[in-house]
């Protein structure tokens, strides 16, 4: 476990230093005299996370998120902002370390009610992710490094795709509340912090795209089915001007499922990765 902690901490430091140096390179942009914070926007995300085992070490990571954003006419739940399909093939290196590589198709809906531009545009990403899990007593800690190569375009007609890289690090904990271990019937609380940095030609003065601070309450219904809900505060520089920060309050609802359609004999041994 000690190894995990050291490894995770080193990864986090390197990532932060890298993020800061990117930020330093943009300091010549024209910025407002003081940082401006936009009014927080309320959002509701319905996220499904599928983790489908396809072999002893491989799994299909299938995520579909429905993200709603409030507008003036639609407070609270808001209207659909993005439908987000993230898929990858994951490789289980050990019980505590896995990697994934895949693609994302995000369908962005124009939530600007006054806009006369296109109402729907696609966004493409290639992503890869490295995740460590570290047990500490009954609590689990997770370090997640996610790197995304992202092609986006605006809603304006004939707008060009711009390419950016995203550098994400997330530290998450899961603390079982009514049990000493994770098993069906367990409630857990999961605080998490994720820093999303970005780079690319279009990124001039706003390397910090998003800082997400979340707390979630989860419940394990069955070994292969978990639900969770939580509130996330996020803030980050707008791409147009690094001095202006957007803010969001997002209510997130998660559904985690991990079916295994393999035949029984192929499932065994299901936990002994090193055999």
């Amino acid at each position, binding site marked *: 476990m000690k190894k995990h902690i050291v490894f995770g901490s080193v990864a986090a430091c390197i990532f932060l230093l890298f993020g800061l140096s990117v930020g330093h390179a943009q300091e010549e942009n024209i910025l407002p005299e003081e940082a401006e914070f936009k009014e927080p926007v309320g959002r509701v995300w319905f996220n499904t996370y599928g983790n489908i085992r396809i072999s002893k070490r491989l799994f299909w990571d299938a995520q579909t998120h429905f993200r709603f954003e409030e507008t003036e006419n639609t407070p609270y739940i808001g209207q659909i902002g993005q439908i987000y399909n993230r898929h990858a093939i994951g490789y289980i290196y050990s019980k505590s370390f896995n990697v994934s590589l895949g693609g994302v198709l995000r369908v962005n809906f124009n939530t600007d009610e006054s806009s006369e531009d296109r109402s729907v545009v696609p966004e493409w990403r290639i992503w890869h992710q490295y995740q460590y*899990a570290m047990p500490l007593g009954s609590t*689990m800690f997770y370090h997640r490094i996610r790197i995304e190569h992202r092609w986006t375009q605006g809603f304006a007609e004939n707008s060009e795709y711009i390419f950016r890289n995203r550098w994400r690090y997330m530290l998450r904990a899961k603390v079982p509340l009514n049990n000493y*271990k994770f098993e069906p019937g367990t409630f857990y609380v999961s605080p998490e912090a994720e820093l999303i940095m970005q780079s690319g030609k279009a990124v001039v003065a706003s390397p910090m795209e998003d800082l997400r601070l979340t707390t979630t309450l989860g419940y394990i219904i*069955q070994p*292969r089915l978990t639900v969770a809900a939580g509130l996330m505060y996020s803030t980050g520089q707008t791409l147009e001007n690094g001095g202006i920060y957007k803010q969001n309050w997002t209510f997130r609802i998660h559904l985690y499922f*991990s079916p295994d359609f393999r035949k029984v004999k192929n499932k065994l041994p299901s936990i002994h990765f090193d055999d």
Partner: protein
Amino acid sequence: MDIGRSAFLHVCKTYVFQSCLLGVWKEKSIEHMKYFNQGIRHIILGILFFFYSINGESQTQLFSGELSAGRFTGTAEYPFEVVEGDSIPVGSFLMYKANLNALLQEKDSFFSISGAFNEGYPEGFWKFQFGEFISNRSSQVVGYQYRVNASGIQHDALGNLTAGKPDGDWVYKISRVENSEVSEELFKSKITFEQGVPQKSFQIENDSITLVGRFLRDGFAHDLWAVYSDVSSESSENWHFDNGLLGKIEKISPNGNMTLEIFDTSAQSYKSEVLDERYLKIVKWYIKEQQADLNSENMGMYRLLRQNALHYQSINAFFNDLGKSQFMPSFKVRLPFYSLDSLETKQIRNIAKTYGSSSRTSEALLGNPQLELLVRSNTEANYYYNVVKRLQSDFLEPLGTFITYYDQQTIEFLPRATLTRQIWPNGLPKKKIQMSNEAGSNVFWDLESFPEYEAQAMKMANVQNMAEYVESSLDSISESMSEWLKKAKKQQQFLTLDELLVKETQLLENNIDTLLTTDRLGIKRAFNGILATKETTLKTYAEMPESDEKLDYGQNVLTCLQNLGELASAVSKLPEQERIIKEAYQDAFWNPFTATIMDEDVKKRITAAHKNILIPYVLDLVDSPTVCEDAPNILQLINDIQTRLLELRDEPTKKLERKLRKEQDPESVLELLGIMSNIKTAER
């Protein structure tokens, strides 16, 4: 013989086969000539062996192995011949047993016997050595041999035999051995024989006294047989024989001399006998007749002769088991003979028979625990009990003594009048038994239907009548008491049964109290059912009138209570069994979202059927009022369910799970799972 034949055939086959080979491969002819010569040699050897085997059937064969003869069991080696189906030892004989390990660990009983047989008769020099040794567990090597010192007792017997009879000097001695050296001679007898007949003088001694005696040429004891003690040159005991007849015994002691006249020298007839245990018993009787306080066991002569006879007996038993022999030395004696005529013999035989049956009846009555209890409350029973006691002491005990003389075959050597007077000094006891000494008491026993008999014991007919009277009396008493006894026995049975029932009930109640620690799966209901069944059966039993049926029913209740106890124990284990099944039906799997191992229930339809259908079904059965009869089946079912459920864990069950989906009927579920149920109350 068979081995010879098969060897011969084998050689022939080999030869024919090899001859063929000769024809096919001529270029290898030289090599084949070699085989050919070998083949011829084999044939000749085979023929020789074949004939040897055929003739060998009437030849001497060698025995080598475990053998038991007399008091000896060990390894024996000797040649024997089979004549008309009997194996007869011939030639030199060796038998031995010695166990060094036993000696070193604790003690060893060893023996070594060597000699020879001729046509089944022991012949020539024989040597017996046996005894028991212990060792001090230390050893030393001397001249390439390990030497272990032994201590104990060794018997040595050696001498010559001619045609199975001792011939020449025979010595029997017993030595005490300490550290492999003789430390003391405990016994020694030296007797000279001629064709089995003891000759001249002989000597028998132990560690304190010596007996010297002599025989006539025909083997009859004669003249003075004297016992000398080691401390005095004067004899301490003299037996005077005259041509085999023991006339008197003189006992010389510091307190005064004593002369005992033994056999009547003017009896009507005499009989020659062997000086053996029986003879000594007769002498003992005569001694006792004159000197009741003289213990003949303490007389040196008696002791030495008896000891010698026992030692010769052990060797005789060995020879008897192996072949034909007459080893027992015929120390011949004569004694007065009071023969029984055929009528008397018949009468005594009848007396013995009647005595046997009477004493069995008497013992049965006096040893009957129910009767012993009954006499305390029932005066009539008490009377009968006392009559039996009197019959035992006044009639049967003297009769027993009389019969002993007949059984020991000494009766014909004892003067009848003296013997009967000794046993019945006042004549035979009277038929009418006065039960109380108090004056005027009129309590007595008399079987009036039985004719009076004479008191004179000399007449065997009278003794026989008395014996028959006792037998009839006892039969009559047993008959009178049998009803009471039967009743008492039954009462005793009820008492025992009630005690057992109470004990079993308490056990059951306590068990249920201890076992009822949880109501998981609703087992409390089954326990209550068990308690209710217990109550009902006990109540039914208690309300039944005393009868044979009640006894039978009580036995059933007892079995039922035991069954209920077993069921309670089985029911109490159900939650644990259910937990074992739940655990067995779990797979550990790696949850990708928590990155932890979680247990996942598998084949849930099977475990659900177990928990929700089968366990309630079993509890229903236990709760049923007819649970007693079905208890063994229910126990079996509980076991079978558990075993089958655990088996199904690893079997392909897709189809079964599908079928279980809608099935709610427990019996159908059992059938689907492949569990046989013999429950009779299933139709409830």
